[in-house]
């Protein structure tokens, strides 16, 4: 009984201290300001080594060993970092021809990639060739619009994954490009391609409303934009047709953007589309700043690119 009495007294003290602070500064257990950093690559195409000094445009650029040190320094600065890839990991150098993607996956695992989506070239050794390399990947494959249920990849991908960093819920979902005409049917077998816009609407609803995510990221291999075929689904057209997506990380078109593109979504809200060209020449970095200042949030989110 004596002990119980003590606990009551102690908790009374804590509560009183809490009340005491009420008038001065809002709440003592307020979540503190935080920053989420998203790092991303796309279309690395087996470019593991740095380009040689005599390579015209890309001389001395790229290379996963340099990317590794960059990623590590950024993670040291902000541990609340995700590292993502938007597909076409495979094909482009003899590393793929000789090892079928094993080295690509092993290195991405060493760099602690969190997730990747699947590009059309990731089927280049057929869906069986992709499946065979999965044991080497310690990161999650995310695709919401490839229905793999009649294939060997069934259950080996997820439509989305939710990451929690410093109390912030980050929902990441994946989108792949239509494979018909890009990949021989005997390579992708019974993979079914589903409408990316409809799937994105589903995904953003699930992630925002049901799962209560603070950030929604789409990892897309649809391509940035098709100038000569503007009706073809692309990251820019997807962005305009959907809501609640904060960032589309793109690939496929090997688009070197000078900076991320600010796009208005269907609700006329600003969001970002980014893509970093190809061959591991660039790393994309998007920082999301969260704070508790109510006044600021009323003015909306500022985007600096």
């Amino acid at each position: 009984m004596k002990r119980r009495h003590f606990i009551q007294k102690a908790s009374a003290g804590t509560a009183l201290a809490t009340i005491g602070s009420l008038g001065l500064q809002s709440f003592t257990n307020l979540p503190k300001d935080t920053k989420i950093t998203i790092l991303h690559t796309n279309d690395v195409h087996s470019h593991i080594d740095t380009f040689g000094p005599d390579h015209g445009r890309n001389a001395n650029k790229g290379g996963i060993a340099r990317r590794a040190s960059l990623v590590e320094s950024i993670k040291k600065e902000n541990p609340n970092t995700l590292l993502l890839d938007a597909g076409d990991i495979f094909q482009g150098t003899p590393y793929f021809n000789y090892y079928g993607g094993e080295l690509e996956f092993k290195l991405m695992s060493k760099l602690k990639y969190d997730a990747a989506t699947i590009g059309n070239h990731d089927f280049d050794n057929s869906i069986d060739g992709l499946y065979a390399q999965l044991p080497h990947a310690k990161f999650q494959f995310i695709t919401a619009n490839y229905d793999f249920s009649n294939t060997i990849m069934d259950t080996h991908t997820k439509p989305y994954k939710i990451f929690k960093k410093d109390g912030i819920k980050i929902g990441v979902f994946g989108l792949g490009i239509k494979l018909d005409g890009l990949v021989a049917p005997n390579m992708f077998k019974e993979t079914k391609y589903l409408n990316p816009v409809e799937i994105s609407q589903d995904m953003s609803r699930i992630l925002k409303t049901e799962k209560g995510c603070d950030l929604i990221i789409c990892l897309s291999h649809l391509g940035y934009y098709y100038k000569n075929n503007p009706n073809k689904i692309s990251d820019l057209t997807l962005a305009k047709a959907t809501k609640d997506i904060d960032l589309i990380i793109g690939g496929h078109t090997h688009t070197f953007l000078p900076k991320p593109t600010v796009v208005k979504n269907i609700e006329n809200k600003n969001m970002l589309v980014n893509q970093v060209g190809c061959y591991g020449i660039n790393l994309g970095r998007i920082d999301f700043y969260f704070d508790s200042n109510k006044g600021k949030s009323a003015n909306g989110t500022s985007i600096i690119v």
Partner: protein
Amino acid sequence: MRFTHFFILLYVLIFLNCKQDKLQLSKIKGTQIQITDSLAIDSNIEAFIKPFRDNIQKDLDSIIAYSLSTYSKNDGNFNTAVGNFMADAVYSEANPIFKSRTGKEIDLVLLNHGGIRSPLNKGGVSKRTAFQLMPFENSIVVVALKTNQIDSLIHYLIRAKRAHPISKLNLSIDKNFNIIEAKIKGKTIKQNKTYYVATSDYLYNGGDNMYFFKPNDSIYRLNYKIRNAIIDKFNKLDTIKPNIDDRFIQIK
């Protein structure tokens, strides 16, 4: 005890209040960071890659044949030695595969001049040579074409005025680019016949504006890369000495 209840209630109230004061996304900052040689090399990653790289280099650079001379795709007007080598290699390596699967024979081969990505240099030839000649992953397909489509193919070649690599097709034109003679496997082209044309999946899909492949009776995908056909041919030969010949000529 009543006192305790009061404090629990107080905690709940505070908690609820704070929940409303959730963190808000206030700012987004986006940048592209170039991977340049000013960044440090992660030595662990580098050490992990090294045995893979060394093994590939050893295999790629092992000499498997010798090239008698340097053969460039710019040497020759309507046919080139290097192009002839590639098209002939596709025929000799792919035809047995096609025959064993279908009982049919390839009638002619068509590749594209732009697809020859480097000269075949004099001296040692290795797998790397094949990667330089043909860095793309294109595979061989055999397309069943009717005679009228073969005519379109021939007219394409004449209009293009380029040494697109061909094999088993002989074509001679006059100074006005009119056909003097066109033969497939040494025989005159027959009307209403189906010819089996080996090409790359890239060209089959309309690459280099070769639109005469579609529609067609049938397509056979050999799942055999052009580069691998070249490597297989290298392995069978000691000395590579292709020639510019009379398969496509202009008689002035």
